């Protein structure tokens, strides 16, 4: 046995692959629902269907794929085995059960707690607690003290905080424990969820993987360190404020500025990696990733514009908010998963089928387990869809929004073809 090898820490393919399968199904389902209910987007306020689609995208697609990917990446980033594979299976089962209740509940939601929503939210919270426990226990066992590890630990804690806040919001709608407007809680839910959980996690993992994939050494880690302080200060300040009646609005603006500064530092770090990379040509996994990072920068501009207000730009209320949300959820989160799937899933599938055969017979490479042309096609349909979404929603053009939803459905189906081609791969022998 060789010392210090992360392959020996790699989880079973059966832990990782089902997450991609559930994620893919959720992405396709959410895309189908979006095509059917595209007119809801043009109302520019939350409807039960939009809440259902958002949760299917955020929990069923983005979170579940991230759970699976993280089980594979913890050994790479922290050089340690995941704490429990059995717990990982159980977590997926609990999450899927919760999602079924939550989505069916939201589809007929009347903005008060129902049996399905409470049950679904409780299962999701249980799943998230199980996931966070598994991740944090793994991190605690790691000897590798790195900035990546700090970001991942913080993201696990924010995930716990956010689902608890989500359940509190649903209960508060029914029982009115606090008179605070639910839009105030929604702000904190968005900040802790989007920034605290997703972005902190993505930054933590990207800090390790981007340099590895693009072959870069000697990076400016100071960006990541300062980013960590700024992001945490901003997130915690914005979360604290919603519990204070009539807090000065300037303080919330200060929290957003801290967060924005932290995120800009991450973008500077990413720019540093891309500009110093030895591997100039971007492969099929890195192209969507680079596009996702650009969409991320655009979403930050859109969120900053939200703060300036729709009036300032002569737009009706709600326009910029939904555009910023689309750029973040579709543009960044979906884009980064569309790319990074090809940097993670084929490797664990390849190791499962071919690790014992290398050197003895000719085997396909991980990059040959999926259709590369299809990756290019869904990268383009994805970009076209996001552009159509932004244009259609900004100027409220029905046919453009419908085309955007149809193109995203096409993207999800092509991606679905490729991910199932990898998941259900049969061992090949090459002569």
């Amino acid at each position, binding site marked *: 046995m060789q010392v210090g090898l*992360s392959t020996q820490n790699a989880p079973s393919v059966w832990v990782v692959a089902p997450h991609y399968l559930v994620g893919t199904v959720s992405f396709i389902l959410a895309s189908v629902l979006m095509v059917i209910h595209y007119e809801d987007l043009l109302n520019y306020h939350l409807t039960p269907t939009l809440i259902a689609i958002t949760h299917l995208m955020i929990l069923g697609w983005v979170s579940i794929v991230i759970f699976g990917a993280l089980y594979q990446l913890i050994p790479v980033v922290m050089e340690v085995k995941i704490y429990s594979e059995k717990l990982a299976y159980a977590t997926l089962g609990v999450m899927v059960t919760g999602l079924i209740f939550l989505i069916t509940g939201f589809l007929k939601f009347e903005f008060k707690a129902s049996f399905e929503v409470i049950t679904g939210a409780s299962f999701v919270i249980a799943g998230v607690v199980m996931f966070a426990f598994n991740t944090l226990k793994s991190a605690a066992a790691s000897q590798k003290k790195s900035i990546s590890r700090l970001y991942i630990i913080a993201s696990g804690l924010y995930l716990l905080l956010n689902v608890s806040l989500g359940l509190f919001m649903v209960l508060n709608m029914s029982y009115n424990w606090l008179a605070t407007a639910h839009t105030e809680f929604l702000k904190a839910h968005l900040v802790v969820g989007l920034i605290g959980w997703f972005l902190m996690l993505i930054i933590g993992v990207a800090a390790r993987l981007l340099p590895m994939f693009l*072959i870069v050494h000697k990076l400016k880690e100071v960006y990541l360190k300062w980013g960590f302080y700024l992001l945490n200060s901003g997130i915690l300040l914005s979360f604290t404020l919603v519990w204070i009646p009539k807090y000065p609005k300037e303080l919330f603006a200060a929290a957003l500025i801290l967060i924005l500064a932290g995120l800009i530092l991450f973008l500077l770090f990413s720019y540093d990696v891309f500009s110093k990379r030895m591997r100039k040509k971007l492969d099929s996994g890195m192209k969507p990733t680079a596009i996702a990072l650009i969409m991320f920068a655009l979403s930050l501009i859109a969120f900053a514009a939200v703060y300036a207000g729709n009036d300032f730009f002569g737009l009706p209320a709600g326009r910029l908010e939904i555009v910023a949300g689309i750029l973040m959820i579709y543009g960044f989160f979906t884009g980064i998963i569309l790319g990074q799937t090809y940097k993670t899933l084929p490797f664990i599938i390849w190791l499962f089928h071919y690790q014992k055969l290398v050197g*003895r017979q000719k085997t396909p*490479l991980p990059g040959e387990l999926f259709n590369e042309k299809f990756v290019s096609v869904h990268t383009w349909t994805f970009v076209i869809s996001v552009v159509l979404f932004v244009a259609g929603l900004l100027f409220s053009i029905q046919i453009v929004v419908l085309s955007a939803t149809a193109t995203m459905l096409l993207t999800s189906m092509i991606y679905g073809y490729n991910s199932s081609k990898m998941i259900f791969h049969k061992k090949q022998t090459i002569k």
Partner: protein
Amino acid sequence: MIQKDFSPEEAKVLEVLKQVPDPEVEVNIVDLGLIYLVDKNDDAKTITIDMTLSTPGCPVGDSIIQHVQTILEITYPDYEVNVNLVWEPQWTPELISEEGRAQLNR
């Protein structure tokens, strides 16, 4: 220590190892600069390889080492093959050969 000069026999071993790709970047491990030492001892019938990985977290590290071991055992059936994974000196991108750099961007 990184070996600079190779005997003709050791150079042949290196040629064999050029058949081993890093599955992630799809460039062979010799041009990636992962092979630090080749020692072929015809009297003792041993081949010793000191090699590294681009990062300790390399998710396919085990399979690369196994590939090296297997391909040398098949090519030199009368020799005992020892593959040692070393982390010193730490690998840097400067160790990639000109040919490796060209392959990376092909």
